[in-house]
């Protein structure tokens, strides 16, 4: 399969010299209606709905933790005010203590009769299971003897507990305002960056600041960082879906065409009928599932919902990502900061409507399972978790463990098979990562690796054999040619101030995260040892540079697969290190240390106040500023080339008009494939993109456009027709990627318009469509 061209990376505009004229004569304005074209920005309703939904997602303030007892406050030592970084566990301890206290204070009848206070919280935080051998679970703290000791939560405490909602809601309000006041009808070479309302940037800054203060405050529950991360994903990945009336990105349109092909043909076809496009029928998993979904939703095609796919696929990644990070640390700040960094550094743009978007989530899911369930407990640096039963280490039957492992392997295999039938590159990345893990003593379990290799080979040697046997010579030639594999090639060189600036923003963002990760690895010695598998996750994709260029995209794919590991150590570099005192780790002093960590109830109430800004020290502000810069840099990296990726409704309508009238076996000639519906009905209409051709032939076309193109198109036999299509998407892509500039393409258009060999079929502000007249 020809991999998608690098989404938001490859492109570069010329300085705005002679824009493509969107207001050209519209004598043959194509019909505006198209089932793939969503209604233009009448989106007030949908935006309102989105806003409302987002608001509902914001958790309400939790106050039950502010219900301490006087008894407790008397018995507990005073708050340890120097503890700047209290931790999530402290909260859990408090929660456990409180639960046991309340239970002890009430008779069973009272407990059963009384409505459960803070029910929502109990759902979120189920009762802490008691560790084996422990007594009441609350340890040193005596139970409350009188329920009247339970002091009501004070109003200021509630307000303070809910303060993280303020920056979150403010950011979302700013985002909604920005979306409603952003005009994308005339994008320049800076893409969406140049069009966004300033309120968007303000919202992003407020959200980042809110996240930073929330995540560093251990008295806040994990729901607040989660809410902020979801807010970030909405602002990052849903903005384009709301702003643009049509789906972005030519490759997403291509995948819509593949789904359409499966729905039309009802089965898989080979290269004899589909040519190069048959590769999609050899990895059909994602497309077949989408074909079923289209029918089940009762919509015309995937274009009806694929604009929202980036948001869906990004949220899907959160589950395995969180699980992986929780395998190596209990530090909530580290976990959520790593998740945040991953979200903002994942600008590569493989979250669009594509097989790799789902395969990446499954890939991370497999790794999460392997890291959690296939480790060797007891090897230094690992620990079996409490709360699970029947462990090998606690004397359970070995057969039961083997049976459990067999079940895990079955489930793992299902995920691997789904990856293998959906995408070509992801199984390769999975294999090298599992191999790297298996080579370490801590994860020396060969079962996941062998399972994955067997499934991968089984698919490659059967269903995918036609493609692989044809592509194998090229693949073998590219092995070891690192220089060629890394270079981006002709037509992918950012050209023009805007494109170059956007590309540098992306490079700086990725480079900064990788440098931060390196700093984290060097600086956090113990963490480096404990989270060594994550270091392997970050390093394992690198050898893929040697294997293939993957259509000049390998560098971006490798970066994406490195990110889960790199983001973790980058977050570690951003966070301060607090060394525990000897008293906290020595045995006899442990109780004291825990007591120190558990402040008194009134102290908790007092301390649950609005966050204090970092002290006026350069170092204290550096980390949040780096996080803010990274968050802001995501926008140009991800959507700085939307001039290429956005196709206005009139462009869609123009191309749709072509396919409405094209007879079977017709030929469409265009500058490049960057236009909507480029692969529409590819099983019956052929294409020729002349900028993909040899440079000498391109030069010939530039010298005599109408003559050379007419000659190239003359081989089409009636009743098939040969069409010439030139749209603004093609012009933007060619110009911003260092191919023909706007002036050269305008000459091509004028030459065709003036030639008697061509007849104009349709024209509007987004492009023009000609047909070659039959030879007389």
């Amino acid at each position, binding site marked *: 399969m020809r991999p998608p061209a690098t989404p938001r990376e490859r492109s570069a505009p010329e300085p705005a010299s002679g824009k493509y004229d969107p207001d050209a004569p519209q004598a043959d304005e194509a019909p505006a209606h198209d089932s793939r074209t969503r209604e233009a920005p009448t989106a007030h309703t949908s935006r309102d709905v989105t806003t409302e939904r987002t608001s509902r997602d914001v958790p309400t303030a939790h106050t039950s933790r502010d219900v301490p007892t006087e008894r407790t406050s008397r018995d507990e030592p005073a708050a340890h005010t120097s503890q700047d*970084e209290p*931790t999530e*566990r402290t909260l*859990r*301890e408090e*929660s*456990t203590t409180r639960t046991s206290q309340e239970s002890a204070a009430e008779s069973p009848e009272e407990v059963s009769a009384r409505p459960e206070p803070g029910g929502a919280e109990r759902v979120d*935080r*189920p009762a802490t*299971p*008691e*560790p084996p051998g422990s007594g009441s679970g609350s340890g040193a703290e005596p139970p409350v003897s009188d329920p009247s000791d339970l002091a009501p939560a004070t109003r200021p405490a509630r307000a303070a507990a809910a303060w993280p909602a303020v920056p979150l809601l403010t950011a979302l309000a700013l985002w909604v305002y920005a979306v409603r006041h952003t005009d994308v009808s005339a994008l320049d070479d800076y893409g969406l960056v140049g069009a966004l309302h300033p309120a968007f940037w303000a919202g992003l800054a407020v959200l980042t600041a809110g996240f930073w203060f929330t995540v560093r405050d251990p008295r806040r529950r994990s729901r607040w960082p989660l809410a902020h991360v979801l807010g970030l994903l909405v602002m990052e990945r849903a903005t384009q879906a709301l702003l643009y009336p049509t789906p972005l990105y030519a490759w997403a349109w291509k995948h819509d065409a593949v789904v359409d092909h499966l729905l039309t043909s*009802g*089965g898989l076809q080979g290269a004899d009928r589909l040519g190069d496009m048959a590769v999609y029928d050899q990895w*059909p998993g994602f497309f*077949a599932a989408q074909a*079923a979904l289209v*029918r*089940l*939703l*009762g*919509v015309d095609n995937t274009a009806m919902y694929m604009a929202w796919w980036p948001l869906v696929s990004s949220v899907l990644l959160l*589950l395995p990502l*969180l*699980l992986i990070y*929780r395998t190596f640390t*209990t*530090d909530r700040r580290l976990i959520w900061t790593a998740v945040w960094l991953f979200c903002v550094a994942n600008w590569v743009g493989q979250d669009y409507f594509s097989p790799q978007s789902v395969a990446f989530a*499954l890939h991370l899911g497999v790794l999460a399972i392997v890291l959690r369930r296939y480790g060797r407990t007891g090897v230094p640096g*690992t*620990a079996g*978790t*409490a*709360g*699970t*039963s*029947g462990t090998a280490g606690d*004397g359970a*039957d070995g*057969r039961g*463990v083997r049976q*459990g*492992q067999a*079940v*895990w392997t*079955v*489930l793992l295999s*299902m*995920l691997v*098979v*789904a990856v293998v*039938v959906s995408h070509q590159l992801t199984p390769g990345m999975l294999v090298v990562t599992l191999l790297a893990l298996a080579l370490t003593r801590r994860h020396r379990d060969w079962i996941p690796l062998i399972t994955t290799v067997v499934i991968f080979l089984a698919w490659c040697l059967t*269903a995918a054999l036609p493609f692989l046997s044809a592509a194998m010579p090229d693949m073998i030639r590219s092995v070891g040619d690192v220089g060629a594999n890394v270079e981006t090639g002709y037509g992918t060189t950012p050209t023009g101030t805007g494109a170059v600036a956007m590309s540098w923003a992306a490079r700086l963002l990725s480079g900064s995260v990788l440098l931060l990760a390196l700093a984290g690895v060097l600086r956090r*010695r*113990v*963490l480096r040892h404990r989270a060594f598998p994550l270091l392997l996750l970050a390093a394992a994709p690198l050898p893929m540079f040697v294997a293939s260029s993957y259509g000049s995209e390998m560098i971006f794919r490798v970066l994406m697969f490195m990110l889960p590991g790199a983001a973790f150590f980058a977050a570690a570099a951003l966070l301060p290190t607090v*060394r525990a005192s000897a008293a906290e*780790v020595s045995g006899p002093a*442990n109780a004291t*240390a825990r007591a120190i960590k558990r402040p008194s109830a009134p102290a908790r109430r007092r301390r649950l106040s609005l966050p204090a800004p970092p002290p006026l020290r350069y170092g204290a502000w550096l980390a949040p500023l780096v996080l803010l810069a990274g968050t802001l840099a995501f926008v140009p990296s991800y959507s700085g080339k939307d001039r290429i990726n956005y196709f206005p409704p009139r462009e869609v309508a123009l191309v749709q008009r072509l396919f409405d009238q094209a007879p079977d076996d017709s030929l469409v000639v265009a500058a490049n494939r960057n236009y909507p519906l480029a692969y529409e009905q590819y099983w019956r209409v052929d294409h020729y993109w002349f900028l993909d051709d040899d440079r000498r032939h391109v030069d010939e076309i530039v010298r005599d456009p109408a003559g050379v193109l007419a000659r190239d198109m003359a081989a089409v036999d009636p009743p098939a027709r040969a069409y010439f299509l030139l749209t603004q998407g093609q012009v933007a892509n060619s110009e911003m990627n260092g191919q023909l500039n706007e002036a050269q393409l305008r000459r091509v258009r004028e030459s065709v318009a003036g030639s008697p060999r061509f007849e104009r079929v349709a024209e509007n502000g987004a492009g023009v469509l000609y047909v070659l007249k039959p030879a007389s």
Partner: protein
Amino acid sequence: MTPQDLMIRMLPPFGGWLALASLALPGGSPLRGAAVAAFLAVGPGAALVRICGPALGARSAEGPVEDTSEDTSEGTDEAGDAAFAHHSDLLERLMLAVLLSVSVAILLATVLIAAHALSGDRVLLTLTLLTTLAAFCPALRARPAPGTAPGAAPPTWKGSTL
């Protein structure tokens, strides 16, 4: 079996039948889309995880080692460890439910398209029937240790909701 267990057990097949019923709504209807998407995203995987849950707990999960010299994470409190591990286990079950659902849908659709028999109704009906069947299957349990008294409760995953 408690009412809560019964509800959790029957929720996935109920979601499947609800999704099937929603096909009577007009195409593009948000209700239809929500019912179908919710079931396809979680239903089959949740049913599978319920069956496999106890057996999955037979193999211990790796967890973070408390750093006593450098990290900012908390001390060495066992209850805190258990709570953290419990939450991680819940997250793992949720992840499995979602990713297995996605995988099963992909695999089924692939098999059907290869057999030239793909249709939305077939995918949904098959998944609903499988999910219903799974709801009536007993959970896989890890084999008890040799010496365990007959009738003794097998090791179960404490606090599991699936």
